[in-house]
């Protein structure tokens, strides 16, 4: 295997002076071997991160990542790229803060610019009750050592001039909170960076390879049936986001997960006018401006089970009208495209990063809206779980058993309603 071509200012200059003809592919395209120590299903950010940390942290490099489509072509490329750790429950705080710390060093770690931009994530609120809730949540964060600040209306006017703070709108903004270390990252680059770094450590990345069956003998996983033939596996990690329930069904397991659609939309690119991520409580809409200048708007669920990947026009109208209400200057922007990702909505709104009731089989899934920011820690924890056949303290609370024992992690207090989180 050729050594990974390292990227640096010097390699860029060399490339520029030699007509950019010397670049190698970022990862190989190997034929699948007959078996591996560990096979990861799902070549999105979570699966690739799992493979990378298996090789780097645990010395397990005889690993394959199977991807049905192509790297970066799934939910990794459909999110709104937000990274934050502003949670109330201690289990979530610890996990997401671990993730945020991994984000902070990720470009150096991977020798790949994931364009992590800690520009600050703001939540604005409209009522006294919402104000109390957000202050409580951010006090909880500070108590856990996570950065959090309360913002007045004049702070908001200074930080986000595009925000309509007038008292004349339907639900006027009375204040906000910010996590300054939160921000955004380039989502494709995260998948590509992990793929390249995992490949350099010896991981086989196999694209265009759909899993059609899970081989189990005497309660233990032994391999996978795929569109490119059977592949033996000592252990198997599943990281397939919205398709988690379908995949584990192949192993005869049911999950407390329902699949729902979440719509996002992006405008034509314009000059920079907003350098924060702003989430509006009244409408559950969150807005940021990408490095390309597009206004990226995320919304809420369609509200009924769906795998169609076509969001409801009714929901799109909600999202766009809320964006126009709070950011009036976006009202004349044309929308370039909108899309709906399939979300694996769990029954308490928190993920499952755990061993499954088949020996050697583990998963990361149930990410609801929040999978992107979790990418590094999700891979880090699933790698630990696969390597040690036991969860790390960080992901032990995210078990499958919690739904039976009652130790659920219901951040919103919404109860067991998948579309309520």
């Amino acid at each position, binding site marked *: 295997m050729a050594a990974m071509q390292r990227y640096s200012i010097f390699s860029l200059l060399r490339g520029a002076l030699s007509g950019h003809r010397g670049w190698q592919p970022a990862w190989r395209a190997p034929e699948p071997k007959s078996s591996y120590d560990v096979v990861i299903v799902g070549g999105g950010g979570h699966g690739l991160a799992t493979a990378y940390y298996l090789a780097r942290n645990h010395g397990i490099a005889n690993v394959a990542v199977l991807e049905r489509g192509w790297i970066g072509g799934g939910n990794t490329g459909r999110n709104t790229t937000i990274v934050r750790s502003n949670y109330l429950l201690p289990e979530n705080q610890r996990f997401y803060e671990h993730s945020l710390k991994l984000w902070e060093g990720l470009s150096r770690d991977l020798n790949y610019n994931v364009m992590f931009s800690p520009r600050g994530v703001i939540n604005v609120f409209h009522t006294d009750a919402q104000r109390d809730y957000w202050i409580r949540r951010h006090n909880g964060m500070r108590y856990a050592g996570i950065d959090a600040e309360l913002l007045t209306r004049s702070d908001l006017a200074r930080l986000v001039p595009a925000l309509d703070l007038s008292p004349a709108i339907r639900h006027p903004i009375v204040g906000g909170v910010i996590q300054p270390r939160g921000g955004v990252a380039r989502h494709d680059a995260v998948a590509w960076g992990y793929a390249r770094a995992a490949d350099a450590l010896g991981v086989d990345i196999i694209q265009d390879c759909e899993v059609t069956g899970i081989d189990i003998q005497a309660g233990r996983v032994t391999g996978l049936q795929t569109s490119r033939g059977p592949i033996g596996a000592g252990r198997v990690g599943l990281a397939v986001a919205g398709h988690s329930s379908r995949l584990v069904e192949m192993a005869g397991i049911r999950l407390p997960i329902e699949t729902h659609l979440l719509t996002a939309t992006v405008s034509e690119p314009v000059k920079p006018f907003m350098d924060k991520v702003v989430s509006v409580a009244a409408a559950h809409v969150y807005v940021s401006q990408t490095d390309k200048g597009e206004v990226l708007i995320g919304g809420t669920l369609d509200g009924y*089970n*769906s*795998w169609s990947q076509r969001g*409801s026009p009714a929901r799109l109208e909600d999202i766009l009208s809320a964006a126009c209400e709070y950011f009036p200057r976006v009202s004349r922007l044309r929308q370039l495209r909108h899309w709906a990702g399939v979300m694996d909505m769990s029954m308490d709104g928190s993920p499952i990063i755990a061993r499954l009731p088949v020996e050697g089989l583990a998963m990361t899934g149930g990410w609801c809206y929040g999978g992107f920011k979790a990418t590094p820690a999700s891979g880090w924890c699933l790698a630990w779980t696969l390597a040690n056949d036991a969860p790390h303290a960080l992901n032990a609370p995210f078990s499958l058993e919690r*739904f*039976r024992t009652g130790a659920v992690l219901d951040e919103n207090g919404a109860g*067991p309603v998948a579309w309520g989180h």
Partner: protein
Amino acid sequence: MLLIPCPFCGDRDETEFAYGGDAGTERPADPGAATDEAWTDYLCFHDNPKGPHREFWFHRDGCRRWLTVERDTHTHELGAVRLSRP
């Protein structure tokens, strides 16, 4: 956009309805006697098919009746719609 054929109100827009989830779940008849296992299955472990699905919809802004609707979760094709409690 779904147009749900309500037996009383005719084809109505999905925005008039509230979704009620998997209609295959059965609330334990005697809650006191139900095992934890049975309660958890009822509350948390629902069908999540990519295909035909039987589900509850409440016609909130119409006749205010609960309907049981057959819908394909992949194509959004609607099948039979009937009253959940005749």
